[in-house]
C-alpha cells in the first residue's frame, strides 16, 4: 500500500535536521527560526522564556545533577531541557535560594515544564526538517 509521505523539506544536508534539533534545544524557538518559521519560533521562544522567568521569579528551584531520589533526577532532566537557560541559571547561581514561600513549588514546576515544552518544540522542529511533519 502506498503511503503519502512528503519529501524532506531541506535535503541539502543530512546533518541539518540534527542541527535543528540541537539548536532548538539550546535556544528555545531557534529550531523553528532555522526553518524560517518565524511566528512559531517567536511564540515558542516567548512562551518558554516567560515560563522559565516566572519560575525563577517565584523562587523556583534549579536542580543540579544528582543521584538522589528518582523525582530529583527527573526534575533535573526536565530542567536540562531548557538548554542555554539552564546553563545560564547554573552559572549565575539562580534558583538556589532556600524556599521561604509556598508558591516556590509552583516556580519549580514552571521551570521543569518549560524544559519539557522546549524538548517537544525541538523535536517538532526536527520533524519539520526531516519532512515527517508536513508544515
Amino acid at each position, binding site marked *: 500500500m502506498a503511503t503519502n509521505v512528503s519529501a524532506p523539506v531541506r535535503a541539502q544536508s543530512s546533518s541539518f535536521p540534527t542541527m535543528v534539533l540541537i539548536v532548538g534545544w539550546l535556544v528555545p524557538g531557534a529550531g523553528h527560526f532555522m526553518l524560517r518559521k518565524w511566528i512559531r519560533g517567536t511564540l515558542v521562544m516567548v512562551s518558554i522564556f516567560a515560563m522559565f522567568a516566572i519560575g525563577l521569579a517565584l523562587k523556583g528551584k534549579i536542580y543540579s545533577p544528582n543521584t538522589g531520589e528518582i523525582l530529583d533526577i527527573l526534575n533535573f532532566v526536565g530542567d536540562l531541557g531548557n538548554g542555554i537557560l539552564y546553563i545560564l541559571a547554573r552559572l549565575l547561581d539562580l534558583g538556589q535560594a532556600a524556599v521561604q514561600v509556598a508558591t516556590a513549588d509552583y516556580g519549580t514546576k514552571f521551570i521543569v515544564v518549560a524544559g519539557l515544552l522546549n524538548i517537544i518544540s525541538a523535536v517538532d522542529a526536527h520533524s519539520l526538517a526531516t519532512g515527517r511533519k508536513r*508544515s
Partner: protein
Amino acid sequence: MTISHFGAVILFSLFTSVVFGITQRSDPRMMIRFGAFCFALFVGGTIAASWVMWLIKH
C-alpha cells in the same frame, strides 16, 4: 513575585497551550483551535478538580 493560585493556572495553561498548539498540529487554523481546546481543558479541569476537593473536604 507573588501570584495567586488562579493566576498561576492561567499563566501555566496559556504558555503550555501555545506550545501544544504549535507542536501538535500542522495547519495554523487547527493550531489555534487545538491551543484553545488545551487552554479550556487545563483551566476547566483545574476548576473542576478544585470543586471536587472542596466537596470532599465539606
